[in-house]
């Protein structure tokens, strides 16, 4: 019982402890890192238990279901929680380096843990209103992290993030209210059973509204404007955590809604979702091709990669869901790795804009190799992790007869390769525009390389030994669809 809700309790307790140790930054740092490691251990223990026993369900407050607030830990939820714990640990280790670290503000650590608690709650909850509450917890912590620093650029980015995401959560709340009015339930299982008895003409607009709210959160076309406006104003460790968590909250909620609660999902909505996925993939990758600031390029790629996950979800099959889950795990890892390597490039070469830097291959060959690893993994070159995600998506599309979708997915892969090679050629291969440039001699980059190394190892493991993971995501999709893995 306690272990099942530990992904909420541990970060919330750590946030509280970090608030109590505000006056002593050194102690706060250690408490924060300790909390992140405890969360990692709990997530691993929870994963082991879910693998042994299947779905663990906890109804809080001793109320019988469907009235109690239920947390249901399944394979999808626990794998995302584990990813969140890993990213939080890497983020906090990164704070010890001097490569674009977040400003040492006393509220940084409580907000980071609060964000992870919000995301963990959203991954595990089985109650619609509770999902809204966790969305809001994550939103307010993200807003707090965005305004850190308080420069005009950050304030402006916060406003854009705030306006669009608030609209998304209000849409979600309205959908929750109307769904409760139509079915009388909020618990996912009870809601699904009641929805099957309700008229489809009533359910279609309500599920559509829910879907729109999640699409705003996932930064899909045409609701993605908040993402490229805000990500580049963040310091590197925070943007790595954001890219690993925020979009995934929306994606996880979408998978649960369409495959878990309301199967079979209404066909018009799935067609709409498929087109949104295609347009997200294309606009994201074309936006990235236009930009020269590394963070903006990577932020636009996040939109394009969200398109891949939406495509897999729009297939509305077990194979599609399995592909979406594998892709979400791969994307969290690799995109965070890319943002963090960009920060090390910035520390070495002095700028995020590709036109102002260069010559890093001769100066820092190790960094060039790590960046290339993440870049090729994002593109999906075999045998790296992205290949398996894209392979599952394209295969499921072709099996279900969606040749156009498969074709666009492959084309976008090619464009992704173009813009990853743009970064690599400009930052590493071409000579530095300033002839007198020398990489900084003294820098404290040990923790940064340590964090990158861990991410690279996990990405390599996903690439070279995908069998276990493939079985895991297939089981996750089966248990979502109500079967026993």
């Amino acid at each position, binding site marked *: 019982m306690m272990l099942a809700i530990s992904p909420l309790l541990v970060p919330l307790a750590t946030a509280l402890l970090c608030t109590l140790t505000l006056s002593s930054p050194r102690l706060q740092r250690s408490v924060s890192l300790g909390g992140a490691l405890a969360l990692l251990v709990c997530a691993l223990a929870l994963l082991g238990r879910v693998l042994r026993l299947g779905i663990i369900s906890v109804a809080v407050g001793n109320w019988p279901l469907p009235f109690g607030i239920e947390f249901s830990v399944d394979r999808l939820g626990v794998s995302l929680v584990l990813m969140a714990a890993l990213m939080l640990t890497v983020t906090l280790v990164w704070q010890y380096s001097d490569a674009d670290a977040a400003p040492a503000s006393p509220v940084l650590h409580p907000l980071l843990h609060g964000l992870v608690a919000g995301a963990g709650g959203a991954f595990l909850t089985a109650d619609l*209103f509770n999902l809204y509450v966790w969305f809001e917890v994550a939103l*307010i912590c993200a807003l707090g992290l965005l305004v850190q620093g308080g420069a005009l*650029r950050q*304030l402006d*980015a916060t406003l854009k993030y*705030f306006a669009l995401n608030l609209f998304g959560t209000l849409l979600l709340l309205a959908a929750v209210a109307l769904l409760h*009015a139509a079915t009388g339930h909020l618990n996912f299982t009870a809601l699904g059973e009641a929805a099957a008895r309700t008229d489809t003409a009533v359910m279609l607009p309500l599920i559509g509204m829910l879907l729109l709210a999640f699409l705003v959160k996932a930064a899909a076309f045409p609701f993605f404007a908040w993402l490229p406006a805000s990500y580049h104003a963040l310091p590197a460790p925070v943007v790595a955590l954001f890219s690993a968590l925020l979009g995934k909250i929306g994606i996880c909620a979408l998978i649960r809604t369409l495959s878990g609660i309301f199967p079979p999902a209404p066909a018009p909505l799935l067609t709409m979702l498929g087109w949104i996925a295609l347009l997200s993939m294309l606009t994201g990758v074309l936006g990235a091709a*236009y930009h020269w600031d590394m963070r903006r390029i990577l932020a636009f790629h996040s939109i394009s990669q969200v398109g891949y996950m939406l495509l897999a979800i729009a297939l509305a099959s077990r194979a599609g869901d399995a592909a979406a889950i594998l892709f979400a795990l791969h994307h969290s890892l690799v995109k965070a790795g890319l943002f963090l390597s960009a920060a090390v490039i910035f520390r070495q070469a002095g700028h995020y804009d590709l036109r102002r830097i260069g010559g890093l291959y001769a100066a820092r060959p190790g960094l060039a190799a790590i960046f290339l690893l993440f870049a090729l993994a994002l593109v999906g070159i075999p045998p790296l992790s992205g290949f398996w995600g894209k392979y599952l998506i394209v295969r499921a599309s072709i099996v279900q007869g969606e040749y156009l979708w498969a074709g666009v997915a492959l084309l976008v892969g090619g464009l992704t390769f173009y813009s990853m090679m743009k970064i690599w050629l400009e930052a590493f291969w071409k000579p530095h525009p300033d002839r007198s440039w020398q990489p900084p001699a003294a820098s404290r980059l040990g923790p940064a390389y340590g964090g990158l190394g861990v991410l690279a190892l996990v990405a390599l493991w996903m690439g070279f030994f995908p069998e276990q993971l493939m079985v895991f995501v297939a089981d996750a999709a089966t248990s979502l669809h109500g079967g026993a893995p």
Partner: protein
Amino acid sequence: MIWAVALALGIVITAGTYLALARDLLRCLIGLALIGNGVNLLLFTTGRLHSDVPPIIGASATTLVVAANPLPQALVLTAIVISFALLCFSLVLAVRLIQSAGSDDVERLRSAEPPAGDAIKPALEEAP
């Protein structure tokens, strides 16, 4: 009664949308807050509007028929608290933003995303 509330809800959401689309930053945020209150009202009304009947299910019945359902009322309390906190945050943010930018025109707040100049390459930014 329900029709009066529905009409009020429509007016609040309409006014909120109108204000949220304004160029003035404060109007925009007040518009979002109004939409939030409209949605809260919607959540409140989903449990029926009866103030004089106690929400007790009789011995012979299995569902609540006439009285208001207390669950949406509990939910809306949570939603009100959250929207109030977000409103406070957004007002402080707006004041800080107007002070540092020297303008409350949303169209001119472009420091996070500069307007596109060249169609081929974006302008070079000085800050890293």
